């Protein structure tokens, strides 16, 4: 009862990195609350293949559901696994990835249990809450912290009365680390039919193509990111050239993605990828909070902007006052000249 749960997402028999990141965070929260960390995994033919990818992150107990029809993921069976298990286990917190799966599953589970769910959190903390209207004091709630409303503010959300407190978190926001402390590492193989009625297998996946990521933006040591100030798709060609020279990757702000200059999977920020590179070169990016949330932990931040008042300049180590068009070719030129 009252433990911290993490739903582990899989592709065949590979556990998603975001799930391992959340297990790491979940372990810390469980330690703070003095409770156990439990994990859930559901798939087909996973027994003996996924446990080693889950238990090392400090899991006390893993609930494994292995049956035909649980992979590829469809909404209803996975929803009923969580809903029925939670009715027995009564967790206080449930975390899942803000992935296509997590964002399909989380709301359905939260609606079924009438518990609150906060999407795309960038921080999770434990703290107290005083409800001024009812005068009630609550200890040890989960603070679900996220930029809101176009990134103009950061909101701290709590669910005082309803359990579990649910949150989704994007890949890369938390950092994964194998747990050094002690954990029970118990695995329970569940009777799936007890949790999932036959009627749940109603949506059939008839065709599926998953490609390995075309780039490694999340793990790139150097990121060259472009915003609205890049001005065009052709402008981005220049950024790709700079990134190639530096052995880095190209990222983008939401404005540049929305303008259609660069693929959606390169978007950096709260609703995109979170990166932690050694060097982050922001080209023509003003620096909305949504974007900053996805790159603020970068080592060295270089901002190229012709607006000296751009918010991103405040967190930059180097501010270059100039247009992208003017500055980026010079960066390429002088890097080439001096690096050899």
């Amino acid at each position: 009862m009252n433990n911290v749960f993490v739903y582990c997402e899989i592709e065949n028999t590979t556990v998603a990195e975001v799930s391992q990141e959340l297990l790491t965070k979940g372990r810390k929260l469980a330690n703070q609350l003095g409770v156990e960390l439990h994990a859930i995994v559901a798939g087909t033919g996973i027994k003996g293949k996924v446990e080693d990818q889950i238990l090392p992150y400090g899991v006390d107990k893993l609930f494994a559901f292995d049956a035909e029809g649980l992979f590829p993921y469809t909404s209803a069976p996975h929803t009923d696994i969580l809903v029925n298990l939670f009715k027995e286990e009564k967790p206080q917190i449930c975390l899942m990835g803000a992935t296509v799966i997590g964002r399909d599953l989380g709301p359905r589970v939260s609606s079924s249990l009438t518990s609150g769910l906060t999407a795309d959190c960038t921080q999770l903390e434990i703290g107290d809450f005083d409800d001024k209207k009812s005068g009630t004091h609550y200890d040890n709630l989960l603070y679900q912290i996220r930029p809101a409303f176009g990134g103009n503010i950061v909101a701290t959300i709590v669910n005082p009365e309803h359990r579990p407190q649910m949150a989704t978190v994007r890949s890369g926001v938390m950092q994964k680390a194998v747990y050094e402390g002690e954990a029970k590492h118990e695995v329970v193989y569940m009777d799936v039919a007890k949790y999932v009625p036959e009627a749940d297998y109603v949506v059939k996946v008839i065709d599926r193509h998953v490609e390995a990521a075309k780039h490694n933006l999340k793990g790139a040591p150097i990121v060259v990111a472009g915003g609205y100030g890049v001005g065009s798709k052709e402008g981005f060609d220049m950024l790709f050239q700079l990134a190639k020279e530096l052995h880095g990757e190209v990222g983008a702000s939401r404005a540049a993605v929305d303008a259609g200059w660069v693929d959606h999977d390169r978007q950096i920020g709260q609703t995109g990828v979170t990166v932690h590179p050694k060097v982050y070169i922001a080209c023509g990016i003003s620096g909305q909070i949504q974007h900053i949330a996805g790159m603020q932990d970068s080592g060295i931040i270089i901002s190229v902007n012709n607006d000296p008042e751009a918010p991103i300049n405040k967190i930059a180590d180097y501010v270059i006052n100039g247009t992208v068009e003017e500055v980026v070719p010079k960066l390429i030129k002088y890097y080439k000249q001096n690096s050899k």
Partner: protein
Amino acid sequence: MGLKIIVLAKQVPDTRNVGKDAMTAEGTVNRAALPAIFNPEDLNALEQALRLKDQNPGSTVGILTMGPPRAAEIIRQGLYRGADTGWLLTDRLFAGADTLATSYALATAIQKIGGADVVIGGRQAIDGDTAQVGPQVAQKLGLSQVTYAEEIEKCENGVLTIRRHIDGGVETVEAPMPIVITVNGSAAPCRPCNAKLVMKYKRANVPLERTADMPYAELYAERPYLTLNQWSVADVDGDPEQCGLAGSPTKVKAVKNIVFQAKESKTLTASDTDIEGMIKELLDEKIIG
């Protein structure tokens, strides 16, 4: 056979152009202060609905939205593009709703309408980016769901074939109706307004938008289709305790404007000397290789 299709659509503040007074002191959105637009992915959903209607003669498309009286604009925008009807949920009791209270209200209204073969909406709204309302409406109605849809490829014998976006790829699913679908922004854009329909519906509105001195009063008596459905909590037999702020399990504890921890930064010009100097510095310190 004709299908009954309900499109869930939301009028949203254009978060791409937000001013400073966007939030109230309570941490909810101050919608009155912002330009209001049709949520972009809801337009993608409307297009899929209209295509289903085109391919299945006898089908109807209705727009269901919730908001202040001016959100009736969303219904008009739907009618201009080929929708047949619409419903505006508007009531102070609906205000301050989180996603769960919103989906309760929408699900209750859908039941009041008498259900549908297809309930379809955008994946998420740009003012919240949560993507929760679609799945929560599905759960409340006990329907299956397909999220992140890009195209409804087929509709045969009560089964829809839907291509959907997944992380790192695409998949195609078969799902029986009735069903709730949410549509991704990568789906086909919505058709433009039809000039004839704009002429037909431009004076359509909900009673709350009307003022005593409004012209065209006799027009509304003559043409009932110009009076759009306006429903309160009571009209949909809703439980006030499950609506709005009261029905929202999530509470906003704190809202703060971000103050960046200013770093000691070096400010350079775009001159060759400055840029070469920086590159040399980064190379010397082995920050770049």
